[in-house]
């Protein structure tokens, strides 16, 4: 297996983009990644695109062809494939792109992710997102997506004493980070009181505990590590790419408060990269709901199980903390265009490792981790990136 590097990154603004289509945003992200990598279209061997549900959001399938076409690559007949794993679609696309380059089958690969969520009404978006859960035995029994995470939160509070305020602190921190991210959907600070008094969605989760509905796209360009320096002075190396699955239904899990898919993907990634959780300088984790980040920092091994709440309260995950988590603002405040999220996490981590993250720069960051979850944990993908080969 060959070592793989990220030689270019691109990302659109995240938000409600009424004047822009799915194809517009994907092309923007892809072209800016190619420009960043100084790669010509003729050099691209393949496209891997993460997309959760263009079928439901824009009534469009056959995404590989559409994207190759509008990126101007149809005349080159570049192979393009769309990958779906709900909110982990981007992470899975990155993982498959990395494996394709590592195997030696392809050299230059674009791994991207895109979701256009605002071409349907809120009801339509909620229904599309609900298809990440078990439609027949969760959704048809009355579950909503926030409702499932609310049940994780309720049990976490019951078992470990996690407080409602500690959940709010995740949102407050991520909104603060997003004020320093010009691409973020929400760039205003919020307070603990505002989170605690926002409207109830699924008790104990309130609207400010939830990630928003977002349009956005992101892309990275991958190359074999041995030729990466031909394209860029600052390649970022993929030290590990690991994916794991678990039951699609939350109720079938070994432990409702642990995402075992995260635990397994992380263990595998640490082993491949030969590092420990303590070696990670920053992490972009899947905070689709505030409780998601608390579970993530536990399941990734940053803190012992049950300590996610107090660790957040103590500032461990703040931008100036021991392990800054979600410097981009996370899904919570940067936005969550579901299929793009896993790639955006890699884009942010690359910018941080290159020292190009502006006001939200984590100083001296050399090793970063990305953590992307599908559904309530039916899929998890972990990548470890480093500036050191």
């Amino acid at each position: 297996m060959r070592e793989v590097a990220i030689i270019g990154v691109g990302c659109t603004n995240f938000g409600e983009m009424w004047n822009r289509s799915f194809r517009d945003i994907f092309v923007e992200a892809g072209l800016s990644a190619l420009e960043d990598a100084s790669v010509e279209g003729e050099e691209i061997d393949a496209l891997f695109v993460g997309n959760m549900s263009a079928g439901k959001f824009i009534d469009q399938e056959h995404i590989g062809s559409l994207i190759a076409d509008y990126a101007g690559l149809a005349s080159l007949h570049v192979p393009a494939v769309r990958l779906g794993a709900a909110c982990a679609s981007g992470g899975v696309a990155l993982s498959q792109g990395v494996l394709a380059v590592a195997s030696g089958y392809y050299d230059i690969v674009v791994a991207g992710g895109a979701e256009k969520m605002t071409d349907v009404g809120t009801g339509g978006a909620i229904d599309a997102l609900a298809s990440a859960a078990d439609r027949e035995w969760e959704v048809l029994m009355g579950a909503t997506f926030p409702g499932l995470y609310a049940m994780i939160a309720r049990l976490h509070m019951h078992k470990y004493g996690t407080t409602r305020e500690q959940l709010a602190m995740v949102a407050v921190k991520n909104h603060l980070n997003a004020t320093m991210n010009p691409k973020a959907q929400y760039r205003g600070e919020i307070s603990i009181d505002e989170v605690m008094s926002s409207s109830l969605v699924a008790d104990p989760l309130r609207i400010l505990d939830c990630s928003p509905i977002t349009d956005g796209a992101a892309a990275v360009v991958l190359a074999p590590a041995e030729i990466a320096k031909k394209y860029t002075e600052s390649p970022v190396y993929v030290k590990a790419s690991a994916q794991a699955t678990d039951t699609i239904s939350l109720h079938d899990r070994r432990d409702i408060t642990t995402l075992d898919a995260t635990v397994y993907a992380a263990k595998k990634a640490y082993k491949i990269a030969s590092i420990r959780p303590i070696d990670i300088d920053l992490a972009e984790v899947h905070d689709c709901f505030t409780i998601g980040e608390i579970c993530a920092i536990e399941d990734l091994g940053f803190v012992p199980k049950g300590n996610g709440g107090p660790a957040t309260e103590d500032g461990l995950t703040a931008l100036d903390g021991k392990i800054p988590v979600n410097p981009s603002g996370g899904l919570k405040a940067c936005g969550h265009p579901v299929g793009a999220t896993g790639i955006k996490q890699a884009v942010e981590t690359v910018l941080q490792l290159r020292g190009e993250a502006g006001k939200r720069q984590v100083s001296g960051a050399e090793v970063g981790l990305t953590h992307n979850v599908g559904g309530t944990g039916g899929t998890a993908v972990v990548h470890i990136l480093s500036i050191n080969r």
Partner: protein
Amino acid sequence: MAVPRFWRNIPARYNLIGTKCLTCEKCYFPPRTTCPACRRAGKIEMHKFEGIGEVVTYTVIHSASEGFDRQTPYVLAIIRLDEGPCMTAQIVCDPNEIEIGMKVQSIFRKIAEEGPDGVICYGTKFAPKR
């Protein structure tokens, strides 16, 4: 949901009929065609659950999906059935009354309606065991 998709699950939805693997004696709800523990060595047969269980965790849904929006706020829970498996279902009770560990018992109820003129879906909810 297409009528056949709902209709083919009616035994499970109305009467809590799941499956039991005769090799490992484990029970599953909803029914499965393969035992996740024994895989190909499993021997699956239908199994009717008693409908008694305990609340593992719960939420009160305030913002619901289509078909459920006239029921809000309602209690949704993960219930561990006495025979072992867990399932997601609504609990018919006062939202202030629900707690983790509460004993519950299955009841047959209307679950959702596909709009004012649409199909009504029936199935299983739970109520506090008195």
